[in-house]
């Protein structure tokens, strides 16, 4: 069982001893029961930190934002920045380290084990008709505060699918870690949701995806929340087209736009297909993209598919090794594809 005080003490000590320049963690939001990301820089702010089943956010994304801000400001501080990392957050941090987005000395990982549970799925909770004002971990249960009093629910019933299938609830990559290591505790077999989906034939699945992509409003919440989507210029944006006094109207008019602004069938499919391919061998199934989608597009099914391909074809697990070769930048003598050997 994680003791919130331990998290606060760890953060406070690191700041007080000047071992880190900031700690990225969770605090209570200003509306409702949800936690929100927060960056604290003073020891006394440690008491703002919370730890509950609504700490969904993958804070390694905030490490990316921090690095971008430092680059813009042309700073390279000596002290690392600390983050509170669940098992999945530590895996994506490991991928970022593997890709040298920042170096190991730049980040201090305060690992917090999800132990036997994980985070809540707000949609599952709403489906049960529970309107909570607060939530807490308690062993294998979640405890929700509602207008009718405390409601205790087995976590499995309202947990996010990705947590049910999680193989690594303990943050393997860490500087310090809190909680019990229950690696291998998966409550459901990996890829359970994907397998269920794939029982349908290809035509049915394609129809399903066409329907889903047609619903996309292209708010880019999925891309924006993703720690792996750190490109300075995303394929859908047009911010780096160099324009000078000599740039002609034709050149401006004919600049490459891979994907048009219009949220229509062809462009939406191209956007989502591009994203999922760019995440192959990098997505560690934090599933923030699916959680933040305002129109509920089940993106996890796509990313899981790529994850399973990488695992079954190449025995590759993103986030498993910082020093090892990455999936798409390495070559195997025993590559199953004959065309490449």
């Amino acid at each position, binding site marked *: 069982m994680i003791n919130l005080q331990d998290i606060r003490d760890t953060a406070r000590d690191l700041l007080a001893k000047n071992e880190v320049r900031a700690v990225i963690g969770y605090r209570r939001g*200003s509306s*409702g029961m949800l936690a929100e990301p927060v960056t604290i820089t003073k020891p006394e702010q440690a008491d703002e930190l919370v730890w509950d089943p609504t700490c969904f*956010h993958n804070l390694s994304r905030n490490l990316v934002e921090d690095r971008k801000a430092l680059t813009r400001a042309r700073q390279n501080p000596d002290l690392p920045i600390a983050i509170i990392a669940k098992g999945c957050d530590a895996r994506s941090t490991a991928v970022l380290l593997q890709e040298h987005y920042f170096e190991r000395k730049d980040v201090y990982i305060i690992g917090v084990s999800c132990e036997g549970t994980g985070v809540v799925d707000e949609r599952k909770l709403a489906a049960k008709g529970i309107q909570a004002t607060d939530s807490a971990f308690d062993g294998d249960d979640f405890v929700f505060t509602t207008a009718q009093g405390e409601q205790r629910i087995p976590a499995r019933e309202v947990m996010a699918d990705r947590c049910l299938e999680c193989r690594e609830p303990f943050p393997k990559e860490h500087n310090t870690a809190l909680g019990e290591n229950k690696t291998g505790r998966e409550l459901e077999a990996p890829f359970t949701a994907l397998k269920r989906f794939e029982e349908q034939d290809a035509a049915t699945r394609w129809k399903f995806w066409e329907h889903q992509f047609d619903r996309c409003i292209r708010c880019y919440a999925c891309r924006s929340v993703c720690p792996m989507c750190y490109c300075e210029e995303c394929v859908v944006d047009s911010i780096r087209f160099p324009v000078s006094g000599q740039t002609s109207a034709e050149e*401006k008019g004919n600049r490459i736009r891979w994907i048009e602004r219009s949220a229509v069938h062809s462009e939406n499919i191209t956007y989502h297909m591009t994203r999922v391919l760019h995440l192959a061998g990098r997505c560690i199934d934090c599933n923030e993209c699916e959680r933040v989608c305002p129109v509920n597009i089940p993106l996890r099914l796509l990313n899981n598919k790529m994850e399973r391909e990488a695992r079954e074809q190449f025995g590759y697990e993103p986030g498993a090794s910082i020093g090892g070769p990455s999936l798409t930048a390495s070559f195997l003598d025993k590559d199953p594809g004959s065309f490449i050997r």
Partner: protein
Amino acid sequence: MEKILGKTKINEWVAALSDWQVSAPVQEDGIWSYKAASNVQLDHTNTTQPPKGFSFPQREVFFSFEQIKGEPPRLTQKLPQATRHAVFGVRPCDGNGAVRMDKVFGDQFVDNYYQSRRKNVAYVGLACNKPQGINCFCKSVGGSPVSSAGMDVLMTDLGDRYFVSAITETGKALMAAGKSLFSEPSAADQKQVKQTHADAVAQPQRAVKDVSGAPAKLKASFDSPLWEELARSCIGCGACTFLCPTCHCFDINDENISSSPLRGNRVRTWDNCQFPDFTMHTSGHNPRDTLGSRLRQRVSHKFQYFPENFGIPQCTGCGRCVTECSVGIDIVNVVNKVTEHVG
């Protein structure tokens, strides 16, 4: 015109609106959305997307163009087709949204594309007997859970029947189409609707504390470091504005279908002040290159620029941007923090 409609008769009324394409909130894929509906239920909380798309779709083709060698370029205007939409179940915050959109696209500048859609859209509103969610704050921004602003008809749920009021001439025509289905309200019905509205208005809500003082205080806070602090966890997506009933910024692009001969469409699409290329200059300079400056723009537009231009806040208190923000950026909290800071 005020009438009573039995709840069981609502779909007979819908069927009687044969000149209209009826849309209503439908729960599909886990969210409420306005969809063409023949079976109208009206047991919805608010929809995830507001009804603004009926008059301001995410993509609008202005005209098509074609350039055949040796011939003059051919432009063909594409004014939207005149489908009449009756949209049922619109909540008062979204009716107030329509009021604001109408000002933007019909006050100083008349937008033909917007207008040719808008004149064919009728909103059949549904009063909120209780708040639709924890983030409702319509009362503090000049609205009300029983407001008829922007509506053609306002319905109030009285248990087994609706109290139906025509607000506009179009509303009267809609009700006239189903006339035998409606009955005259009794004195008891009148009393009940009054009480229901009073109870609805008395329900507690969150509140933006100083809406009238906000324009001056936001102006004074333009350079405040608070913006970067409040936007610290912002991920820079566009969910808040794409789901807003009053955000109306757009981009115009030429979408080429073929290059030889040159053929394509000039299209307007929703744009988003939270996107990095929104204010990108051709020189490469971006005057709003930080998340804080973009949050400031969104909030100041709602609570300073729009009030300066039109005398009312642009925000209608629907709460979508708060509920759907994945990192807890909360416009109520932001405005309160910034205005309190100025004092």
